[in-house]
């Protein structure tokens, strides 16, 4: 099967991410992102014909929030769909927007992901992911030390701790350049060892300092057809392809590959990428913790052994490095869960479009990769490019 027609991101907007945006209610917060996205895209609300909406509603305990949010997201009189896939929601919304525009059903789709975590209990909401019949009372939200232990088993506790904290520090350095970021801590490299050892532990070697934020925030992204890109003289970041890989909730053990690696293998095979580290210029990864970030860097770039950990040790993942990771600061800096995965896509697009301002990477960006994470270790992976993909590129494989 080939993709019916090309789709590009032509604009994006984000509310400021914060631990409590108490001065706005949910639709007001979404409205901020929508207005910015439309301005960035250079279009009016009338130009949008479909609005996608998603979040994890058990956090805020609003049922079908897309109903109420009509007053802030502009979908009145328009087509729309609500999609929810947990933490991957934002990336699923991006895939859906790509599908809807590619299908020909719509020419311009506005995708909106949001979360107002401060209005609920985040860990409680995540705990409710577990089966109510078995295990819910054991679940500890998203906290587990097993990810850290895996790295420690492989590289030894000293090297592992140091690399995880270095990764964390670099993420903060990036966040310091991103005015939208929630947590900007001014972490210093000279304190890496100390902080790695003294930050309060949450589970095993997963410490507070490694763990993602709980943020309020909304992200809105405008997707348009090739024709509309031309008509509006837009600045496009083209969607090349995307892949979604889920995993049955109890089968998260054993020697099977993780969904990150499987998604990367499938996506790169279809898109003809044999050396992602060379052929892709920047990665916006959904990294819920520094440990997982370290681990999945290896999977997303199809690396092995200590190739990925070296990239961290050698500053390759820094904003001016050979392969920048999360120039936005990533999920450890800001995590408005329903928006987070969409923010990765938006940030990847910003890098291609050259609109990332102070956190624009130093090197030219031809291809960007964005990942979403959620559920029982699911992955959504999306590849974007500066060049328009060839019409008739193979999509299904």
């Amino acid at each position, binding site marked *: *099967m080939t*993709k*019916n027609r090309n789709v590009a991101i032509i604009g994006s907007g984000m509310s400021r991410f914060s631990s409590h945006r108490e001065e706005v*209610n949910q639709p007001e917060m979404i409205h901020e992102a929508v207005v910015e996205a439309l301005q960035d895209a250079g279009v009016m609300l009338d130009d949008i014909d479909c609005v996608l909406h998603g979040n*994890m*509603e*058990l*956090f805020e*305990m*609003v*049922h*079908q*929030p*897309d*109903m*109420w949010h*009509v*007053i802030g997201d502009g*979908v*009145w*009189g*328009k*087509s*729309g*769909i*609500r*999609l*929810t*896939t*947990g933490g991957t929601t934002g990336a*699923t919304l991006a*895939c*859906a927007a*790509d*599908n*809807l525009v*590619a*299908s*020909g*059903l719509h020419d311009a789709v506005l995708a909106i992901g949001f979360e107002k975590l401060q209005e609920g209990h985040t860990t409680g*909401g*995540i705990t*409710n*992911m577990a*089966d*109510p019949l078995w295990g819910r009372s054991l679940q500890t939200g998203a906290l587990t030390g097993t990810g850290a232990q895996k790295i420690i088993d492989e590289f030894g506790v000293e090297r592992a701790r140091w690399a995880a904290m270095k990764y964390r520090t670099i993420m903060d350095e990036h966040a310091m350049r991103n005015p939208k970021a929630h947590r900007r801590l001014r972490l210093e490299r000279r304190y890496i060892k100390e902080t790695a050892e003294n930050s309060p532990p949450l589970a095993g070697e997963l410490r507070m300092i490694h763990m993602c934020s709980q943020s309020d925030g909304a992200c809105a992204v405008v997707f348009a057809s090739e024709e509309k890109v031309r008509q509006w003289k837009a600045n496009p970041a083209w969607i090349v392809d*995307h*892949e*979604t*890989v*889920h*995993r*049955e*909730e109890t*089968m998260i053990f054993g020697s099977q590959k993780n969904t990150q690696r499987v998604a990367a293998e499938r996506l790169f095979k279809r898109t003809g990428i044999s050396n992602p580290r060379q052929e892709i210029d920047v990665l916006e990864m959904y990294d819920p913790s520094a440990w997982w970030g370290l681990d999945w860097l290896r999977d997303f770039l199809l690396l092995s052994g200590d190739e990925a950990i070296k990239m961290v040790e050698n500053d390759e993942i820094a904003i001016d490095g050979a392969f920048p990771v999360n120039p936005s600061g990533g999920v450890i800096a800001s995590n408005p869960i329903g928006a987070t995965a969409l923010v990765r896509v938006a940030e990847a697009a910003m890098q291609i479009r050259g609109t990332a301002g102070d956190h624009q990477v130093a090197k030219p960006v031809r291809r960007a990769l964005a990942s979403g994470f*959620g*559920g*029982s270790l699911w992955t959504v992976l999306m590849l974007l490019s500066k060049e328009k993909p060839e019409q008739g590129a193979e*999509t*299904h494989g």
Partner: protein
Amino acid sequence: MASRVAICAVAQTKFEANKWNLRMQGLLWEVVKGVREQTGLGFGKGGIDGAVTVSDDVFDARTISNGGITDVVGAHYGAEEKVAADGAQGVYYAAAQILSGHHEIVLLAGHCKESQAASRNMVTHLAFDPFYTRPVGLDYLAAAALQAQAYMARSGVTEIQLADVVARSRRWASLNPVAQLTAPAKREDILASPMVADPIRRDFMYPVSDGAIAMILANEQRARQITNTPVWIAGLGNCYDSFFLGERDLGGNFALECAAKRAYAMAGVANPEKAFDVAEIADQYAHQLPQYAEGLGLCKSGREWLESEGPDRQNVNRSGGMLAGNPLMLGGLARVAEAVIQLRGEAGERQVAEARRAVAQGATGPAGQLQTVVVLES
């Protein structure tokens, strides 16, 4: 646009007031198994290459509730995307996945157990904003009652006419093996049922219901390999109305007319009053049958339509409609299911002769704030 999309198989559980003996995995497996048996399709290369699921975290009382059914829908190391709205929205999205070229064969699977919560009204109460509409006490039932008042005042549709709508629903439902409320009901008894939210009486509401529905959608090339009776999706449209009930024309059909217009444009339907052999309307409440018939362009006056046997003339809700029982998340999907069954000639005693084109409608949100319309052709 790319090639066409067809619905190749449909399976429904019997809809019941309380499917206490099955949890969501078991419920969904029944219908997933059903469509796989109908088509012989497996998962992965050459078979089903993705799933679109329909469910709701608040009804399921579980965050990312689709996390519990990954195995059932074949999404272990596969793709699954969840639509959290009426299942007709799932049809819309699954069709888009295929038209985009990203998928060839999609499993669409939805489930909902209204019986699980102490009251479904407690669930829909949470759809209202925490500051005003919720404290005022709104839920979808109250919203529907306000809609009913507005519509009945404008249209002149009477309570007696609505009772007859309900009685008719039971007659057709008795011929539908999956329908829930099939016992005949007399006008007097329906009118004597207790008032629940003026002017909605208990028998005017869709019953509390549990169930699941699965379908297989495919692109044209694959559909012709899978089945001899593909049902083509000829038109799709959806549209949102405002949120605050006071800002809406509650007795009118702003969103539905808009959704229908989009679907009809795509399907090339110029005269909806004559275009369809079968019509399936998601009548959660009896007054919505004539109201949404107007919105779909099946008639101009719902009252006159009822008076002139419109529902029978136009073969509306041969399934029994939503009044016979579907859970909130599946009302529109059940309408599409019946339309498909009719167009495949598999509707048994309730079959419409030579059915070739159908319209199916689903609603999401308070008083049908979001409307979805699907036009199907054999």
